[in-house]
């Protein structure tokens, strides 16, 4: 276990170093993809427990607006401080909404979570102080007044995203191997049995919901800092749908699935944009269909297949 943690840390450092030589567009694309990967990692925790949230956009958008609004009012560009605010506010809201949501399963959970994100969308569209549907601009991030290039640029946000994904990834990897992590699958398989074993199903789901909200808030905060602009579209249900799409693409079998899925999704989308500006949606749709048909457990199942072949 220690070895694999070191391996992930090493990979994080390598990816960060690669950012120095990458073209700018790729750095930016990877930053956004990694931020989405964070949100989908949270979604993965819920999916393992058999719950599909169509409302992670709520925390993604809330995290982004926390960073934007706090940055404006407190006049700070300190990324760590802003991301902390985003996570705290998201967890606080999830602590309230979660009390209600963890009573529901299946389609009811999906629809309820979507309803809450659409409420945030509706409120933001009506609030002209936050720029209504046009949103507003966010200043680029600094780390206690420092940036890697001396001036604000995409590299800073990239570094934040890589660090966040590495740290959260290691956490989720270990969490999924802890009793609390396995409890998720147990809940999916048989709730009554879990209760008889002496665990509270509601508590298990509640904690997963809080963790997922924290990750979505962090992802939203990083997106806001990287893109420099936020709008209510981040809370719209299509954004939440995109996260589910990425989860299906990457696969829910492993923590790396969401990250691979997100990077793949962004790469396919941007090249689809370039190759066929009129029918890029079709290319994305065909890609998902192909993955569902040939790799029902997502892209990650390829890795599993090859490692299994090797060990057997």
């Amino acid at each position: 276990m220690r070895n694999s943690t070191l391996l992930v840390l090493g990979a994080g450092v390598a990816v960060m170093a690669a950012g120095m030589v990458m073209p700018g567009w790729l750095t930016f694309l990877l930053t956004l993809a990694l931020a989405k990967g964070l949100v989908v990692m949270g979604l993965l925790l819920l999916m393992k427990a058999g719950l599909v949230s169509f409302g992670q956009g709520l925390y993604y958008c809330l995290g982004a607006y926390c960073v934007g609004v706090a940055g404006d009012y407190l006049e700070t560009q300190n990324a760590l401080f802003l991301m902390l605010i985003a996570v705290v506010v998201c967890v606080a809201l999830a602590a309230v909404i979660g009390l209600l949501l963890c009573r529901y399963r299946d389609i009811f959970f999906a629809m309820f979570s979507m309803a809450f994100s659409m409420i945030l969308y509706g409120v933001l569209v009506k609030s002209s102080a936050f720029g209504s549907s046009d949103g507003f601009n966010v200043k680029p991030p600094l780390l206690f007044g420092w940036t890697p290039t001396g001036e604000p640029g995409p590299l800073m946000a990239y570094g934040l995203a890589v660090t966040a994904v590495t740290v959260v990834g290691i956490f989720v990897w270990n969490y999924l191997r802890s009793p609390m992590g396995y409890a998720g699958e147990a809940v999916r398989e048989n709730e009554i049995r879990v209760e008889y074993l002496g665990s509270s199903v509601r508590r298990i789901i509640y904690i997963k919901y809080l963790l997922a909200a924290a990750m979505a808030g962090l992802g939203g905060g990083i997106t806001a800092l990287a893109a420099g602009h936020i709008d209510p579209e981040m809370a719209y249900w299509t954004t939440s749908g995109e996260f589910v799409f990425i989860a299906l693409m990457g696969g829910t079998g492993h923590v790396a699935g969401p990250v691979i899925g997100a990077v793949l999704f962004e790469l396919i989308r941007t090249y689809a944009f370039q190759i066929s500006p009129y029918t890029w949606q079709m290319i994305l749709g065909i890609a998902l269909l192909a993955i569902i048909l040939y790799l029902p457990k997502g892209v990650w199942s390829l890795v599993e297949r090859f490692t299994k072949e090797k060990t057997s």
Partner: protein
Amino acid sequence: MITSFVKKSTLAGLLVASAVAQPVLAADEYKLGLVTFLSGGAAGPFGVPAKNAADLVLETLNAGGLPAPYNMKGINGRTIKPVYVDEAGGATKQASELRNLVERQGVDSVVGYISSGDCLAVPAVAEELKTLTVLFDCGTPRVFEDSSYQYVFRTGPTATMDNVAASHYIKEMFPKLDSVSGINQNYSFGHESWADFNGSLNKLIPNVEVTTKQFPKIYAGQYGAEISALMVNSANVIHSSFWGGDMEAFLLQGSARGLFEDQTAVLTTGESAMYRLEGQIPEGTILGGRGPFGIYAPDNALNRWFREAYIARFETAPTYPAYKMVQGIFGLKLATEKAAEKVKGQPTTEDVVSAFENLVYEGPGGTVSMNMGNGHQASMEMVYGRYSHKSGEPSVTDVRRYPAACVNPPEGMSSIEWIEKGMPGAKCN
């Protein structure tokens, strides 16, 4: 399974390879990024007319077939090669795509953006990449009021003047006006349009009653409840900034229920539907075109050429998004050629930027003055008229033209502040 994997990876490899392989760029080619809606609800009314206009103008420019002062081939003699990008996907996606256009595709400059959200998001990227970016259609005045940019220009006027001019027009047409109502989409453009209209009308005619204001969802398509509310709370004038399918649906559903029999609608973007709905628009409806475009465009050589060529090729008259696209490309071309006069060889982006600032030029819609936002934001006159189908052809009567200085705030003052203070310094004749 393995063979299907091989097939798929070959396919993916081919895709990536074809995308990464950069076409060899000839030295005398000018790569121009063009961003408009090619999918979604804004594609039909705005994105596609703008793209059609760009196709037509770029082809004619490359052949050197335009009237003076646009008769030089391409841009400063370089053949223009357009690269189209769909504006769909939201502001973050567009910020990302602008990077791709510049860093992956190597465009020289970009003309584009219809959505105000995108226009707020992309300038920061344009500044970072030091790429000349011309915003051609979006309306929010916040772009240059909240920030100032070096490499970003907007050749289309802001939405403020649409609604301020609408107030002036109503004051003239309805001397006994005592009530107005409004129906606008529930998003930034709708809210801002209503606020500007209501604010300026209150300053021009005090004590006008607002009977009701409706904000249905954008792309709702069904306005039964809102039309009932407008009928029950009857007013002299109904203000609406609806566009595209929403405006068409509202007109058709409202006409069927007799909404426009004793109430007059002010459609601030109505010009864009004039030809599509020629039989359905009620007689006397007040139509705006977001500037002197389309039917309101002046009778000059450029406009005659543009209208004839556009109708001949696309079998419909050009609407305002088409005019604004041409205006954006012309501004970029003129600024580049003006900058080239002073230097040897091709001018740098910075040369073009300083030539573009405070540029005054003629487009198919008349004079464009880049005299707002530190020389980066255009102002133009605004025109309103009333729809008439009596001659059997769609036309407008009672046309009034408001000079730019009458319907735009003075340099350095924000639109909201200007309207709140009662529009000081407005020079109307």
